[in-house]
C-alpha cells in the first residue's frame, strides 16, 4: 500500500535536485544552466515545505521558500541580462566559449 | 551647388522610433511583408530589414500585378484602350478615362461640347470622393480601427449607384471617352446627386469625429513618416501626398485643364499642429496630414459638384469623333490631377489609328518610390501607417 509522508517528498526532491545538478553541469547553453538552477531551487523549496508540514509544524519553511522564490526571480532577471550581454559580445550562448578574460 | 539649394536641404531619414528602441541592438532579420499581407493594399511586397520591432530598411518589390497595359496600348486604338485605363487605378476609373481622353483629344485637336465638360467634371469629382472614401476606410483599418471601413463603403455605395445608373458599371466604367462621354446623364441624375451631396457633406464631419480626431489615431499617425516639401518634390510626389507636405499645388488650379477654372474651390494642404482645429502633435508632411488632406478634399469636391449642378448646360455630350480616328504624327504629354496625384499620359502617334507608344505616369508609382526613404528607423507598426497614408493602388503601380 502506497502512502504519502515526509520520505516520499524528500525522495522526489532528491530526484529533482539530481536532475537539476546534471543539467547545470552538462548543458552548454547558458539558459539551460539557468533552468538547471531553477530545478535545484525547486527541489530545495519542496524539501523546506515538506519539512515544515510534516516535521516542524510551523510555517517557517514556507517563509523561507517564499524568499527563495523571490530571489530566484531576481537571479533569473540578472542572469538573462548577463546572457544577453554575453550573446551580444560573443554571438553565441555556448558557455564553453566564454573563457576569455576580456572586457 | 549653393548651400540654399533645395536638394541639399533634404532632411535625414525622419525616424520616429523612440530612442530606446533604436539603441537596443539585437539581431537583424529579413521579413517579407507581402505580397500576401492584410495591409499592403493588394500585392505590394516590402522586404523589411528589422532589428526587433525597428525597421532599418524597407525595400519595395513591385510587379506582381503587371498586366502589360502599355504594351496593350501600342496594339489597340485609343477608343479601345479607354477600358484598359479603368483597370489602372481601379478605384478611380473615371479619372483615368478622363486623363487618357484628354491626351488623345489634345493630340487629335478634338473639341468637347459644353455639356460633355460638365459631365466629365461631375464624374471625376464623384469618383474622387468614392476613392477617398475607400482610402479613408482602409487607412482606419491599417491603424486597427475596423469600423470606419464599413462607413466609407456605405457612402461609396451611393456613388456607385449613381455610376451604375449612368453607365451600367460599378467599377470599370468606360464612360468618359474620347470626345466627351459615351452616354448622356440618366433621367433624375441631377436630383439624386443633389440629394447625395446634402446627405454626404455632414458625414465627413462625423468621420472626422470618429477617426481623424481620435486620440489614439493621432498618436499613431501624427509625426510619423514625415516627408518634407523638398523631399516630396525630389521624389516626385504629387496629389494629397505633396499637399500633405504643405505644397499648395493642384493641377486643377496651377495648370488648369478641362473647365476647372470656372469653379471656386480651395486646395487643402498640411498645416502644422495647433492651428485652427489641428491637433498639436501634427507636423506638416506626416501621415496624419496626408490623411486629413483627403478628408478636406472630399469637402472641396462636394463644393465643385454643387457648382457643377448649378452650371450644368444642355446640348450635346459628345463631339463627333470619326469612326477611325487617325492619330497624327507627334507626341503629346498631358497630366491631370488624379485622385492619388498627377496622372500623366504620353501618347505618340504616327498617322495611324494605333499609337506608337502609350506611356502612363501613375501617381501611385511615383508616390510609392519614397517608401524606402521614409520607412527607416521607424517601428514595425508605423509601416502600415506610412504606406497606408501614401495610399497606393497596385493596379496603377504595376500597370
Amino acid at each position, binding site marked *: 500500500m*502506497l*502512502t*504519502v*509522508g515526509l*520520505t*516520499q517528498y524528500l*525522495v*522526489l526532491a*532528491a*530526484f*529533482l535536485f*539530481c*536532475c537539476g*545538478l*546534471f*543539467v547545470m*553541469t*552538462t*548543458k*552548454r*547553453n547558458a*539558459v539551460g544552466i539557468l*533552468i538547471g538552477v*531553477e*530545478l535545484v531551487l*525547486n527541489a530545495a*523549496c*519542496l524539501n523546506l*515545505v515538506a519539512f515544515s*508540514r*510534516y*516535521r*516542524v*509544524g*510551523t*510555517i517557517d519553511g*514556507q*517563509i523561507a*521558500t*517564499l*524568499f527563495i*522564490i*523571490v*530571489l*530566484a*526571480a*531576481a537571479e*533569473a*532577471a540578472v*542572469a*538573462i*541580462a*548577463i*546572457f*544577453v550581454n554575453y*550573446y551580444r559580445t560573443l554571438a553565441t*550562448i555556448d558557455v564553453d566559449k566564454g573563457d576569455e578574460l576580456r572586457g | 551647388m549653393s548651400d540654399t539649394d533645395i536638394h541639399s536641404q533634404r532632411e535625414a531619414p525622419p525616424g520616429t522610433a523612440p530612442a530606446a528602441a533604436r*539603441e*537596443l*541592438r539585437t539581431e537583424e532579420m529579413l521579413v517579407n511583408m507581402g505580397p500576401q499581407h492584410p495591409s499592403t493594399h493588394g500585392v505590394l511586397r516590402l522586404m523589411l530589414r528589422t532589428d526587433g520591432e525597428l525597421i532599418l530598411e524597407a525595400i519595395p518589390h513591385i510587379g506582381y500585378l503587371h498586366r502589360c497595359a502599355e504594351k496593350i496600348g501600342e496594339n489597340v486604338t485609343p477608343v479601345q484602350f479607354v477600358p484598359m485605363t479603368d483597370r489602372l487605378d481601379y478605384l478611380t476609373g473615371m479619372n483615368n478615362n478622363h486623363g487618357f481622353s484628354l491626351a488623345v483629344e489634345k493630340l487629335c485637336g478634338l473639341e468637347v461640347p459644353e455639356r460633355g465638360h460638365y459631365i466629365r467634371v461631375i464624374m471625376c469629382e464623384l469618383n474622387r470622393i468614392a476613392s477617398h472614401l475607400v482610402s479613408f476606410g482602409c487607412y482606419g483599418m491599417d491603424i486597427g480601427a475596423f469600423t470606419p471601413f464599413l462607413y466609407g463603403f456605405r457612402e461609396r455605395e451611393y456613388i456607385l449607384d449613381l455610376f451604375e445608373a449612368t453607365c451600367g458599371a460599378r467599377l470599370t466604367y468606360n464612360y468618359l471617352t474620347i470626345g466627351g462621354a459615351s452616354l448622356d446623364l440618366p433621367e433624375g441624375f441631377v436630383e439624386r446627386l443633389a440629394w447625395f451631396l446634402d446627405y454626404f457633406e455632414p458625414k465627413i464631419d462625423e468621420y472626422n469625429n470618429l477617426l481623424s480626431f481620435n486620440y489614439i489615431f493621432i498618436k499613431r499617425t501624427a509625426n510619423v513618416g514625415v516627408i518634407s516639401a523638398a523631399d516630396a518634390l525630389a521624389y516626385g510626389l504629387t496629389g494629397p501626398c505633396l499637399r500633405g507636405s504643405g505644397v499648395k499645388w493642384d493641377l486643377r488650379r496651377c495648370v488648369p485643364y478641362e473647365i476647372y477654372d470656372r469653379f471656386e474651390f480651395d486646395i487643402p494642404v498640411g498645416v502644422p499642429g495647433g492651428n485652427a482645429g489641428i491637433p498639436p502633435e501634427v507636423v506638416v508632411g506626416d501621415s496624419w496630414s496626408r490623411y486629413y488632406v483627403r478628408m478636406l478634399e472630399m469637402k472641396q469636391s462636394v463644393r465643385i459638384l454643387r457648382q457643377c449642378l448649378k452650371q450644368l448646360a444642355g446640348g450635346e455630350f459628345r463631339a463627333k469623333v470619326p469612326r477611325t480616328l487617325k492619330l497624327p504624327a507627334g507626341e503629346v504629354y498631358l497630366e491631370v490631377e488624379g485622385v492619388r496625384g498627377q496622372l500623366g499620359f504620353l501618347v505618340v502617334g504616327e498617322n495611324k489609328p494605333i499609337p506608337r507608344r502609350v506611356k502612363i505616369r501613375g501617381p501611385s508609382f511615383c508616390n510609392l518610390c519614397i517608401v524606402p526613404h521614409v520607412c527607416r528607423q521607424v517601428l514595425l507598426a508605423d509601416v502600415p501607417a506610412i504606406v497606408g497614408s501614401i495610399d497606393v493602388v497596385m493596379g496603377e503601380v504595376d500597370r
Partner: protein
Amino acid sequence: MSGEVLAFYLLAALAAGSALGCVIATNIVRMAMCLLGTLGAVALLYFLLSANFLAVIQLVVYAGGTLILIVFGIMVTSRTYGEKLKPRTSEALIGTIVVLALFAGLVAILLRAPWTPVAPTEPSNSVAQIGQELLGTYLVPFELASVLLLAVMIGAAYLAQPAKKE
C-alpha cells in the same frame, strides 16, 4: 488508496518526468516547457501540503514571471531556430555516474532516517499568518529582499543597456 495519495503520485510522476525531460531534451525551448511541467507539478504539490499561498505564488512568480523571462531570453539569444548545443559525451558520462551515485546515496540515507513526524497542522489562515511572520519575525530578511530586488532591478537595467559608443 485515498485521493491525496493518488494525487501525490500523479504529481510526483509529472514533476519527475518533466525534470527528466529537462535532462534529456537538447532543444532549449523544450527544456523550458519541461521546466513548466515541473514548476506546475511542484505548485500543485504545495497545494497538497496545504501551502496554498506558496502554491499560487509559485505559479505567479515562477511560471508566470521567471519562466516567461527565460523563454524570452532564449528567443533573444538563439541565432537560428532550434539551435542545439549537445553536451560533450565525456561530461555527460561523468555527470551521469556522479549524479546517479548522489541520488542513490541520498535515497539510501532518506529511507533509513528515523523521522519522528509531528501531526500535520492545518494552518488556520495561512495568508494572514505568513503576512504576520513576514512583517514580524522575518522583518529584516524581508527588507533585505526588497533592497536586493531594487539592486537587481538597477543591475539588470545596467547590464542590458546598449553598449556605450566608444
